[in-house]
């Protein structure tokens, strides 16, 4: 049915096939037949209404019921050549877990996912499935609407957690080899889990006081509840992973100090924690935040619950968020929840170039977020107390495509206008944080400040040092970071055994 079959690596193809040919799978495939499966409608994700959710930080999506999950699983055609797996950066055996859902074996389904992904409750929520597994789902090509793989992943992970049956895989005997993982974000947590499953003694060194990296400081509660993250981290702890908080690698101790303490291999997953600013006048006025600061105050430091928590954040009347990515959507929806009368996205291109996930944009629209496309701020003006009072913008129009293939925005002459704002959140991307890298002489760093690695192994220029996630990509997704981490963990395992 696919236009051209997608070639999977032989080892992965063999693993999938071994499951595909099992008797129960063959039997399930026959009943109901493919033609009937193709007629089944996609199960919608139940959501809290926009009015109800617009003023609190509780999760928007409610998750599928067991019945809806089984019904959705029936839509999966159980293809001989599943496109979905090729679209998954961590190569989850998607057909196997979905067929287990169809049979009602939800715990077994969760276990199947965890063979290659230790954090399914997170991925089921924040992965851009529509541009990964679901984009290459054969059902999408055949009938237009892909299987809701992400919603099913979320369902089985939540089911397993609610059942209190989070099973541990069988662990090999300890190897006695020590591995240091720098950063407890998606990449670091994944690498740690994979290495622990191989029997190595893993310590994560984390700068902040809670685990999760961007999952704790960046992604809001209404998209990823902290309790979910906590449960996933608890799973890693049960695998034997140790987390050292309040430890800034490169400052609290150097990589060489850790070597002297017996750590033989390193995985660097320090992320893209350096916010970009536009360098326009007024950007240091009180009331202009980086998205990192704004979201960190609200999420990690719980400023939404000020003054029960001590960390404050501005509660604006007119909030403008600069940018069109997921971080911008998180910021603007947060501003709205904190009471903004107007919460606006200011984006320099048009709607179709916006990098944010469609679901996030739709949720934002439902919640009353204003979108101002083809608009770019050129300066901010303050009041007598140095507080942000207004911003001046230019209108843009789209010109020729640039290096990214997107049409370049060009200013419209004479289109300047000024609007009152008392909060601006700059969400135009981030650069890799150089703090650790500066302390590692000999580490090859690319021109955007990213660590240079061999993409096949994630090995850096220093022996025993591997890296993945935004520190090598500059700014990507949670799941790509996790894919890198899996590759790196396999390489580290091979390195320790060599």
């Amino acid at each position, binding site marked *: 049915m696919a236009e051209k079959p997608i070639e999977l690596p032989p080892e992965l193809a063999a693993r999938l096939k071994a499951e595909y040919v099992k008797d129960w799978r063959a039997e399930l495939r026959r009943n109901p037949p493919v033609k009937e499966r193709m007629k089944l409608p996609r199960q919608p994700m139940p959501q809290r209404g926009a009015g109800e959710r617009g003023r609190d930080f509780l999760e928007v999506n409610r998750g599928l019921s067991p019945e809806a999950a089984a019904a959705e699983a029936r839509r999966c055609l159980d293809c001989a050549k599943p496109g979905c797996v090729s679209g998954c950066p961590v190569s989850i055996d998607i057909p196997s877990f979905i067929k287990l859902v169809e049979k009602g074996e939800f715990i077994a389904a969760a276990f199947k996912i965890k063979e290659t992904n230790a954090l399914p409750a997170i991925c089921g929520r924040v992965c851009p499935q529509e541009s990964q597994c679901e984009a290459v789902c054969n059902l999408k090509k055949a009938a237009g609407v892909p299987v809701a793989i992400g919603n099913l992943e979320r369902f089985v992970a939540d089911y397993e957690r609610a059942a209190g049956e989070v099973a541990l895989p069988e662990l090999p005997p300890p190897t006695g080899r020590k591995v240091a993982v720098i950063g407890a974000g998606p990449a670091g947590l994944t690498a740690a889990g994979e290495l622990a499953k191989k029997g190595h003694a893993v310590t994560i060194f984390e700068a902040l006081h809670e685990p999760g990296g961007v999952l704790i400081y960046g992604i809001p509660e209404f998209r990823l509840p902290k309790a979910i993250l906590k449960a996933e981290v608890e799973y890693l702890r049960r695998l034997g992973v140790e987390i050292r908080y309040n430890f800034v690698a490169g400052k609290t101790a150097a990589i060489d100090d850790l070597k002297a303490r017996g750590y033989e291999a390193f995985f660097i997953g320090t992320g893209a924690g350096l916010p970009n600013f536009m360098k326009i006048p007024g950007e*240091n006025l009180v009331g202009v935040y980086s998205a990192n600061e704004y979201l960190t105050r609200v999420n990690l430091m719980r400023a939404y619950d000020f*003054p029960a928590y001590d960390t404050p954040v501005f509660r604006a009347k007119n909030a403008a968020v600069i940018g069109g990515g997921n971080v911008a959507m998180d910021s603007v929806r947060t501003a709205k929840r904190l009471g903004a009368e107007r919460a606006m996205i200011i984006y320099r291109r048009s709607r179709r170039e916006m990098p944010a996930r469609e679901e996030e944009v739709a949720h934002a629209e439902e919640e009353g977020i204003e979108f101002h496309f083809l608009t770019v701020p050129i300066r901010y003006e303050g009041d007598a107390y140095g507080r942000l009072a207004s911003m001046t913008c230019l209108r843009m129009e789209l010109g020729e495509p640039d290096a990214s293939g997107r049409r370049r925005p060009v200013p419209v002459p004479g289109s300047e206008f000024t609007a009152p704002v008392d909060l601006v959140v700059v969400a135009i991307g981030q650069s890799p*944080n150089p703090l650790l890298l500066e302390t590692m002489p000999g580490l090859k760093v690319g021109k955007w400040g990213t660590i240079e690695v061999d993409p096949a192994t994630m090995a850096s220029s220093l022996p025993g040092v591997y890296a993945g996630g935004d520190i090598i990509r500059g700014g990507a997704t949670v799941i790509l970071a996790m894919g890198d981490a899996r590759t790196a963990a396999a390489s580290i395992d091979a390195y320790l055994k060599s």
Partner: protein
Amino acid sequence: MPRIIAQRRLVPNLHLIEVEAPDTARAAKPGQFVILMPDARGERIPLSIADWNAARGTVTSVFLVLGTATRKLALLKSNDEIPVFVGPLGRPTEIANFGTVVLAAGCYGIGALWPTARALRRAGNRVITVLDAKASYLVYWDDRYRRVSERLIVSSRDPGIGGGEYVAEKIKALVAAEKIDRVMAVGCTAFMRSVSEATRPAGIKTIVSLNPIMVDGTGMCGACRCTAAGKTKFACVDGPDFDGHEVDWDELFLRRKSYFDEEIQALCRWEKENLP
């Protein structure tokens, strides 16, 4: 969680806190700071490192009891634990044999500048120290500074002390009297600014340790943006030391007051709940 070794009042409103942090104690250098958080609901705040003991594995800071976080800190006892104590952060102060160095310290800065004073003396500098205090009973650690300083001057607006001359006048007099190679000032923003203005006409290099609001302290959030020599810097990773003649002081004052109303609100609430 990091454990408190000691917490006590040095002089009214200025407290010392010593925390068990072996890695930080081993790595600390003059001019660096830590970020700490007094309890699970508290704010992350930066404090300069005032001393450390690598053998004991402890780090000491001196802080002014001012807002909610520092009120909470001032009530901690030994063996209490706090959720956050992370460091050493920031770039260390440049230590070299500059010749004659004038150190100007006030308030918590008397503690904060001590590691620098000791290191500068060891590097062979001639050290002259000016300790600034609102009253004579607010001076502390003068015995320590006396050990490394050729001269120790106390400045105050209290007319009973040194003629009631504020720090700027003392600095101006020193600059007029002899060749000074470098000045270092640590204390509140107004104090550092007035020292910087006092040395500007003579063009004497003046290093200050900036104290903006911070959250993570590792360059991740940009809350601590300040302007030096016309460029935006992150005080946590580019500083905290800057050339005092290049700092945009007005901007720093305004940004430090970002949450003035919220800080009062939080403190009032805390006092209502915790004070008799």
